[in-house]
C-alpha cells in the first residue's frame, strides 16, 4: 500500500512492522513525530511497551535493559539527545545488543539550531554502532526492517540516520509492505544470549587485561562480517519487496571522469545534477555512501580506481582537520593496490541546515573541473565571507 508520509512516520511504520517489543524515547525536535505516531500505533497493544522516560540517557539505558531480556527494542533521537546518550551507546555495542535507533540528523549547539547536519551522528563514529544514511522516506522504512535482521545476526546495534526536516518532515510516497510479508522476511527475534532467571549469568562485569582486548577484536570481526550480512539481507529484501540499496550505490560511475561522493538526502539532489551534466554529454557520476559503519572501503576503491577526479560533499566537519567522509574516502585509497589515485576534493557545505541546492552541487562540480588538484583539505561552498 502506498501512502504519502513524512520521514518520521516512515520510521514509525517500519518499527511497528518489525514487531518491536520495547520502545523507550524522549522527545527532541525534529524527531518528535516518530514517537507521537508510535504512541498512537502502540496504544492498546499488549505486545509492545513504550516507556516515556526523562532523558535520552535513560531511553538508551531502558533499551539496553530490555534488549538484555531478549526482546526487540527501538529508540529515536537527534543531536543533543544523541550526544547525551554517548556513554550508553558504547554500552549497547559492547554488550552486543541488537538495538535499532533512528537519529534524525540535526546540528550540535552552541549556538542552538534545529537544522540538519551530520556532526551529531558522525561524532558517535567509534561507539561500535552500524551507521546507515538514508536518501528517501522509502529507504528509511526499508532500512529499519533490514537493520533489525542485520543487527540480530551480527550482534551490534544499528543507527539509521535521516536528515532533519529535509527528510523527517517532507512527505513522499512510501510503499508500506504487508505485515505478512515483513513477518516472513523478519521472524521474531530469537536471542543467542539473554538474561534469564533459569540460566543465571553475570553480564558486563569487570574484566582484567586478559579479556577486554579480545572482546574488542570480536566487535571488529562482527563489523567486518556486517558488510556481507548487509548485502545478503539487502538481496533477500529485494526478493520480497523489489528494492535494494547495498553498502554504496553507483550512479553513472562506470565511465565517469568526476565522481561526486554523497550521503543522505544530498544524494537525491545530486542525481538531478548528474542527470543534467549527462544530458550535456559530460561524464559525471555519483557514489552514494549508504553505510558509514562498516565503511565500504573496498567499494570506494573499486569505483574511484577508475575515475579522474573525486569530489566529496560533507555536511559535517571535524574541526582541526576536514570533512569526515573526505577523510575516510582518502584513507580508503591508501595502502591498497588501486589502479590509480585520483585527486580527491573535500567540500564542506550545508552546515546547520543551509540548503544544498542543485546550484551548490554544480558549483562543486565546476570547481572540480577547473582545478587539477585541491589546494586545501577543505573547500568551503556557500560560505558568506
Amino acid at each position: 500500500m502506498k501512502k504519502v508520509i513524512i520521514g518520521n512516520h516512515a520510521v514509525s511504520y517500519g518499527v511497528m512492522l518489525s514487531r518491536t517489543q520495547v520502545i523507550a524515547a524522549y522527545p527532541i525536535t525534529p524527531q518528535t513525530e516518530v514517537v507521537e505516531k508510535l504512541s498512537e500505533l502502540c496504544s492498546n497493544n499488549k505486545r509492545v511497551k513504550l516507556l516515556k522516560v526523562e532523558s535520552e540517557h535513560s531511553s538508551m539505558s531502558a533499551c539496553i535493559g530490555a534488549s538484555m531480556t531478549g526482546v526487540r527494542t527501538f529508540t529515536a533521537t537527534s543531536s543533543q539527545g544523541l550526544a547525551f546518550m554517548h556513554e550508553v551507546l558504547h554500552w549497547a555495542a559492547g554488550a552486543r545488543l541488537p538495538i535499532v535507533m533512528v537519529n534524525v540528523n540535526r546540528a550540535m549547539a552552541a549556538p542552538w539550531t534545529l537544522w540538519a547536519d551530520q556532526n551529531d551522528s558522525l561524532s558517535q563514529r567509534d561507539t561500535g554502532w552500524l551507521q546507515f544514511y538514508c536518501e528517501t522516506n522509502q529507504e528509511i522504512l526499508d532500512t529499519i526492517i533490514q537493520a533489525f535482521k542485520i543487527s540480530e545476526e551480527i550482534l551490534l546495534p544499528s543507527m539509521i540516520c535521516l536528515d532533519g526536516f529535509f527528510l523527517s518532515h517532507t512527505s513522499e510516497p512510501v510503499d508500506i509492505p504487508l505485515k505478512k510479508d515483513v513477518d516472513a522476511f523478519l521472524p521474531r527475534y530469537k536471542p543467542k544470549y539473554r538474561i534469564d532467571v533459569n540460566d543465571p549469568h553475570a553480564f558486563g562485569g569487570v574484566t582484567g587485561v586478559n579479556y577486554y582486548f579480545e572482546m574488542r577484536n570480536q566487535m571488529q570481526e562482527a563489523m567486518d562480517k556486517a558488510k556481507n550480512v548487509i548485502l545478503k539481507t539487502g538481496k533477500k529484501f529485494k526478493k520480497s519487496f523489489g528494492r535494494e540499496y547495498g553498502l554504496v550505490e553507483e550512479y553513472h560511475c562506470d565511465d565517469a571522469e568526476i565522481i561526486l561522493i554523497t550521503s543522505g538526502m544530498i544524494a537525491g539532489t545530486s542525481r538531478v545534477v548528474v542527470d543534467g551534466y549527462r544530458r550535456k554529454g559530460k561524464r559525471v557520476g555519483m557514489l552514494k555512501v549508504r553505510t558509514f559503519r562498516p565503511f565500504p572501503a573496498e567499494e570506494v576503491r573499486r569505483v574511484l580506481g577508475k575515475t579522474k577526479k573525486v569530489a566529496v560533499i560533507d555536511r559535517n566537519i571535524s574541526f582541526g582537520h576536514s570533512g569526515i567522509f573526505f577523510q575516510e574516502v582518502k584513507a580508503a585509497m591508501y595502502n591498497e593496490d588501486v589502479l590509480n589515485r585520483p585527486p580527491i576534493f573535500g567540500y564542506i557545505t550545508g552546515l546547520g541546515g543551509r540548503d544544498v541546492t542543485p546550484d551548490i552541487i554544480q558549483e562543486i562540480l565546476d570547481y572540480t573541473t577547473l582545478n587539477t588538484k585541491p589546494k586545501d583539505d577543505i573547500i568551503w561552498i556557500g560560505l558568506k565571507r
Partner: protein
Amino acid sequence: MNFKVPKEEYMFPGHTACPGCTAPQAMRYVLKVLGQKTIIAMPACCWSTIAGIFPYSSLKVPLFHTAFPAGASVASGIKAGMEVQGQSDVNVLAWAGDGGTFDIGFQALSSAAERNEDIIYVCYDNEAYMNTGIQRSSSTPWGAWTAVTPKESPESHPKKDIVYIMAAHRIPYAATASVAFPDDLIAKMKKAKKIKGTRFFHILVPCSTGWKFSPELSIKMARLAVETKIFPLYEVEKGVKYTINKIPKGISVKEYLKLQGRFKHLKEKDIKFIQKRVDKEWERLMDRANNRID
C-alpha cells in the same frame, strides 16, 4: 527472639568485598527474600567488584552490570522486557550505592519512581564514593572526613534525606533498613515483594575502610546508627503513611562518632551540633509518623 532468617542462599561463599564490609550482608538478606526469580541491574558501585571479576560471579541470580547513572533506567527496561514476554512475576532489583542513587543516578531514579515502575530499588549506603577511594557524595554526613573533605575542611553539608524525597514521589513503598536488624530488613522486604510498583529501600552499610573503624565493629556500627537515631528504621507507604519500625534507645551520637576515624577531628561543639540536628530530625520523623504534619 523466634525470628528465622530464610535458609536459602543466593550468594556463593566467595566474593571480593573488603574485610568487615556489610554490603554483602545486605545483598544476602535481600536475596533470601526475593529468591531465584530475580534479575539484578547494577550500576557502578562497590558491588560491581564484590560480584566478582569476569568470568566469575558471586551471585546465583542473573546480574547485568550497567553504566553509573543507569540503575533505575536499565531496571525499567528489564521489567518492560519481562512483561512483554509474559514474565511479570520476575523481581527486577536495581542495586546501587549512594553515589549511584543520591547523585549520578538520581534523575533516572526519580523518573522511574514517577512512572511507578514495577521494580525494587535498593540503595546500599556507605556514605561516600568508597569504590573510587573515599570521596564525599551527597550522602556523606556533616562533619565527616573523606579524601576530598580533609579534616581541615570536612563535609559541610548535611546528608540528603533520600527516603523523604522518594516518598514525595508517592511510590507505594519506601523504607530504611539495617544489616544489624536482619529481622526488620527481611520482614520489610517480604512486605515489599508483594506490592506492585516502585519500592525503594535505603540500607545503611557501615564501611570499615572508608569510615576508619576496625572491621569487627561493622555490625555494632550499624546497630549504633539506629540506636542513636542517626539512621532510624521506618517505612513510608504510598508516600504518606510513616511507621517507625523500631524505637531507638536514644544513645548519645558521641558513642557512634567516637569509634570512627572519619569523625576523629570533631570538637565537642561539633558533636553537640550533630546531636542537636539528629534530635531535630527525629522529631520531624515522629511528627510524620504521628500524622502531625503532611
